[in-house]
């Protein structure tokens, strides 16, 4: 005599089919239903192959139990699900009636489903746009003080030009509007020695960058001015996402060495989640900004700055236009008269 367990193990029926049956068939009829359906299935597996037999199986299961949906309340095969009374019973009846009507009018059902799909789709699409454009604030404190700083030639309609290292120093020294300014150098590193080699989207910034965004690492520290020096700059602050995906959120990550473009860098900090500025930055390294005032044509960066609390955007623009004029006067070979500083709110 087989035990109950052995009997169940010997059963061929796939689990979903069994679940459907147990969910919808009356308890005292389940055994024979399962038996009949399994017998048919076992035979069809042999004669018609597994895939076809499985299709027929689910058709059988549904047809055997559809009394649940299609109304015949008195069927002995139907699980008694309408025990409730009053509101719940009426609701259940209404739902079943609705389902029957939809099943009976496939054309109407298709139109209804399509209408719902389009409506939901359009709403979702519009909400995602509104959410990113209007609702979601920058993930930084007092974001209205944050601006992009570009080399601009407004008369030519040119507002977002990259600039050179010397211009960053000029702006930093001559402005009266920024509490901090940092150049941004978007770069990519080849990461090696950590499993598969990978291309990393990274950013080099000066130490003012982190105070500028008022972001502090959740682990370790960000870098200081002493590391913006050739030879001392082999440190990296990594993003939360990169930390999770490459190191599994390892708490002992600090001072781990990773090889970027062939040079070992020590990981000194991890940034909080969601603060990967500029977008997709996996790690930040110190920007050793070359102080070579003769290389004013070498433009490969833009800057970000935080306005002083008492300075409005208009005041800052006026101030930076004046600064641009004085720079253009000092270096007439490098700047035309139209040169201006472009300030764009973030």
């Amino acid at each position, binding site marked *: 005599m087989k035990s109950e367990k052995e009997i169940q193990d010997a059963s061929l029926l796939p689990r979903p089919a069994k679940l459907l049956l147990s969910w919808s068939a009356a308890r005292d009829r389940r055994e024979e*239903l399962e*038996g009949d359906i399994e017998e048919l299935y076992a035979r069809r597996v042999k004669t018609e192959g597994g895939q076809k037999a499985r299709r027929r199986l689910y058709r059988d299961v549904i047809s055997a139990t559809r009394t649940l949906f299609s109304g015949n309340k008195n069927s002995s095969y139907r699980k008694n699900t309408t025990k409730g009374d009053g509101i719940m019973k009426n609701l259940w009846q209404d739902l079943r009636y609705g389902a029957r009507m939809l099943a009976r009018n496939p054309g109407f059902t298709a139109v209804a489903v399509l209408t719902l799909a389009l409506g939901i789709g359009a709403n979702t699409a519009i909400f995602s746009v509104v959410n990113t454009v209007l609702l979601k604030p920058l993930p930084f404190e007092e974001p209205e003080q944050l601006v992009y700083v570009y080399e601009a030639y407004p008369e030519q309609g040119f507002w977002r030009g990259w600039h050179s290292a010397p211009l960053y120093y000029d702006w930093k020294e001559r402005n009266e509007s920024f509490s901090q300014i940092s150049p941004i150098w978007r770069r990519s590193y080849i990461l090696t020695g950590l499993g598969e080699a990978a291309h990393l989207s990274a950013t080099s910034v000066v130490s003012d960058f982190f105070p500028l965004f008022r972001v502090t690492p959740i682990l370790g520290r960000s870098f200081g001015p002493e590391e913006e020096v050739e030879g001392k700059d082999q440190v990296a602050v990594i993003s939360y996402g990169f930390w999770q995906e490459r190191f599994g959120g390892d708490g002992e990550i600090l001072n781990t060495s990773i090889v970027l473009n062939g040079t070992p860098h020590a990981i000194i900090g991890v940034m909080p989640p969601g603060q990967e500025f500029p977008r997709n930055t996996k790690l930040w390294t110190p920007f050793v900004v070359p102080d070579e005032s003769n290389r004013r044509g070498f433009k490969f960066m833009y800057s970000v700055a935080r306005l002083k609390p008492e300075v409005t955007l208009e005041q800052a623009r006026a101030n930076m236009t004046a600064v641009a004029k004085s720079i253009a006067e000092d270096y007439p070979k490098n700047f035309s008269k139209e040169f201006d500083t472009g300030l764009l709110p973030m």
Partner: protein
Amino acid sequence: MKGERLGEFEELVLLTVYGLGLEAYGVTILDKLEKDTERSVSIGAVYASLDRLEKKGRLRSNVGGATPERGGRRKRFFAVTQSGVQMLMQMRRIREKIWSQLDAKAPTQGVSR
């Protein structure tokens, strides 16, 4: 009384159960129905009819012993009751009467063109 009469499919199921004798359960009934009627029959329709016929008293069912195949699950066997047999005989008599009247006339009579 309407509930006492049989639908076409119910009649076929009842007749099939009668023909199968002691071997009438879900699978054999389905097989024989499909073979004899030359059409695909859904197991759900068979169960629904068996159930109705039993409630009308034309069929009787009881669960058999454990089986070595089909995961050891028992079968429910169906048998036609005395009133079921009477009903089948009556249906047959009615049909044969109508056919014999028809056969006495020209074979094409009554066919609409």
